[in-house]
């Protein structure tokens, strides 16, 4: 029997599944090892039925619907009769440019950074604290599930508005940074951008706080360091970066900024506009892809295994995001040595141990063997 399936059978003998609410009203879907087609439109009346299904079949991937239906096992959507749906945010490295060149750990760190921003939006702006669950997806990202009673009935278009909020799509910058005349003599008019105060709600306060931190940070940097940092933002060239740093060294200017006035020197204005990029959440999928907006989609079942990594879809505590280490906390397999054949050199840190693998046969712990074989980096 196939190595991965055997290991998965072992896990599903005694899995730790987190069952969704409205359990019997959800649709379930499965992908099996060595099979292309997904089995969908399955429902279970009792939890024990799902557990016994998993025990017998050990699927490679297990999904359930974010929506709940009157007849979850009906083959078509109209027959299912949609009753409502949780709000799902799927953060995935695939949607963050630049991550394809990174190692697995580094990539997960980048996504985690986006996760922190997302959670701050969901709690501070949307007020979802009690109804929010966060999960490591087992693959290349994190999922946030929201089941606040107010949002269950929202339609696609309304859900897209929430995504637009989080990704700053359609954000009206000129209503955040308003131009104001600060000095006028004869022909000369001096204008300045007025920043919102830092405790304002919504994007205005968020931008203001971030802008202030951003400028303080650049001011404190050495010139070279600041220029390099600023160059990493799209649309900022060397000249702009240098001038912005010089402008920011002016103490009086920083003082005025504290009063809410950003002096309208072109380089500073350019940088300010880039702060939006820092604030918005990346990795929620392309704006034209209905990810959160899709009110019928399937998501990974918490506690199930990811067929490509062997990691468990694992809950992350809201106040424990920093401490969460997916390459330690989502591992379910043991340490016993397994003989594998490495197909290409690979480096990874798992369970606190650093592995540098060369091509050829070697022995690795079971948990690493599952990961390597799942990722097609090794074979048995």
């Amino acid at each position, binding site marked *: 029997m196939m190595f991965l399936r055997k290991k998965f059978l072992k896990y599903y003998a005694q899995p730790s599944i987190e069952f969704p609410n409205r359990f019997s009203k959800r649709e379930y879907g499965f992908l099996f090892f060595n099979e292309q087609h997904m089995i969908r439109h399955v429902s279970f009346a009792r939890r024990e039925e799902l557990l016994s299904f998993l025990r017998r079949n050990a699927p490679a991937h297990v999904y359930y619907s974010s929506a709940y239906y009157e007849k979850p096992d009906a083959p078509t959507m109209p027959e299912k009769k949609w009753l409502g749906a949780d709000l799902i945010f799927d953060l995935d490295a695939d949607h963050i440019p630049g991550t394809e060149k990174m190692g697995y750990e580094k990539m997960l760190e980048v996504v985690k950074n986006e996760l922190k921003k997302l959670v701050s939006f969901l709690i*501070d*702006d*949307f*007020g*979802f604290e009690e109804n929010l669950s966060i999960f490591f997806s087992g693959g290349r990202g994190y999922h946030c599930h929201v089941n606040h009673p*107010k*949002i269950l009935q*929202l339609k696609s*278009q*309304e859900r*897209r*508005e*929430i995504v*637009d*909020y989080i990704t*700053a*799509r*359609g*954000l*009206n910058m000129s*209503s955040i940074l308003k131009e104001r005349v600060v000095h006028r003599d004869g022909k000369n008019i001096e204008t300045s951008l007025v920043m919102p105060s830092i405790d*304002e*709600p*919504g*994007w*205005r306060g968020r931008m203001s706080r971030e802008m202030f931190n951003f400028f303080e940070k650049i001011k404190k940097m050495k010139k070279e360091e600041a220029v390099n940092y600023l160059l990493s933002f799209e649309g900022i060239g060397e000249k702009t970066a240098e001038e912005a740093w010089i402008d920011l060294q002016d103490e009086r200017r920083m003082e005025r900024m504290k009063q809410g006035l950003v002096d309208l020197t072109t380089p500073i204005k350019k940088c300010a506009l880039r702060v939006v990029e820092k604030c918005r959440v990346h990795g929620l999928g392309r*704006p*034209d*892809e*209905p990810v959160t*907006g899709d009110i019928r989609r399937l998501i990974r079942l918490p506690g199930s295994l990811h067929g490509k990594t062997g990691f468990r879809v694992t809950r992350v505590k809201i106040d424990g995001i920093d401490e969460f280490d997916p390459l330690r906390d989502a591992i379910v397999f043991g340490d016993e040595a397994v003989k594998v054949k490495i197909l290409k050199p690979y480096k990874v840190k798992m369970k606190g141990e650093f592995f540098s693998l060369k091509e050829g046969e070697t022995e690795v712990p079971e948990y690493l063997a599952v990961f390597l074989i799942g990722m097609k980096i090794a074979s048995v």
Partner: protein
Amino acid sequence: MARYPFLQEVKEWVKNEGVSVNEILHDEIYERARDIAIQRVNDAVKKAVVGERALLNETDCIMEIFSYPLARMIVSSIESDFLRRRYALAEAKKAYNSLKNEDNGFIRKFAQEFGIELVEKKIHFADYLKYAPTWHEKWKLVNRPLQKGMIDMSKIEMARLLQEAIRKKLEQELLVLYSPPEARKVFQGAILEIKNSLQKDEEKDVQTGNATILKFPPCMRQLVSAVQSGINVPHSGRFSLVTFLHSIGMDTDEILALFSQSPDFNEEKTRYQIEHITGKISSTEYIPPKCSSLQTWGLCPHEKDKLCEKVNHPLSYYRLKWRKKK
């Protein structure tokens, strides 16, 4: 109360008065109510908003209240989706005009009837999203001061949101409303007249030809069908569509015909706007916005096709489609 005849409270009052349908349809006392009812529908058809009447004494109010169910009977008898939508919008606009002058306590109570729980001047974003015209940049959630799920609203904004709630509710009610055959008889003349003026609008609806519409990009197709089926389209949408239609060679009358199906169609105003946008009466001939602007305005449908991926302007899509055919 007479200003908001669709409220549950008013319906209860009418019920308690114990006046039968027959009485309001035939009794001389209610002739004024019947006249006002016709006026309500006529206002909706011609001006897209139901006009205000002075409510100086009790009789004024009673006539106003009874005119409302009668007006609904007229609309329902005509059996036109377009009229239903236009009438619902016209009543909602009338309510908006009064609501913006009410005090906060009244607005809070009023909102409750539409399932909206206001906390002081704050509304939960989920209720907001149900009714806000988020096609407009100003109303997009991202441009609202959202904190812990609540949005602070001005009174005017709240009234505008309630207008949408009223419109939706009335539209739904009108869909299932049964109109007694007696009402058809009583209002025979008025019904015929309204039908005629509606038909005139429809005759103006010159087809742009399905062949060309098929070559439109999805965003423009969506706007055309929204406008034609009478869904309320925001300014940004109208602007985009007019500039696009103008660019592909349609003239003012052709564009006007297309817009005549919109629930708040006003020929004079629309003509002025079209001629302004197309440069006929202004110095600027505007060009259609590019894809990224349409996306920002929320006008880009999420069902894109392959050709969309290749272009960044709706006109390029249209041209490519033509070239492909050849």
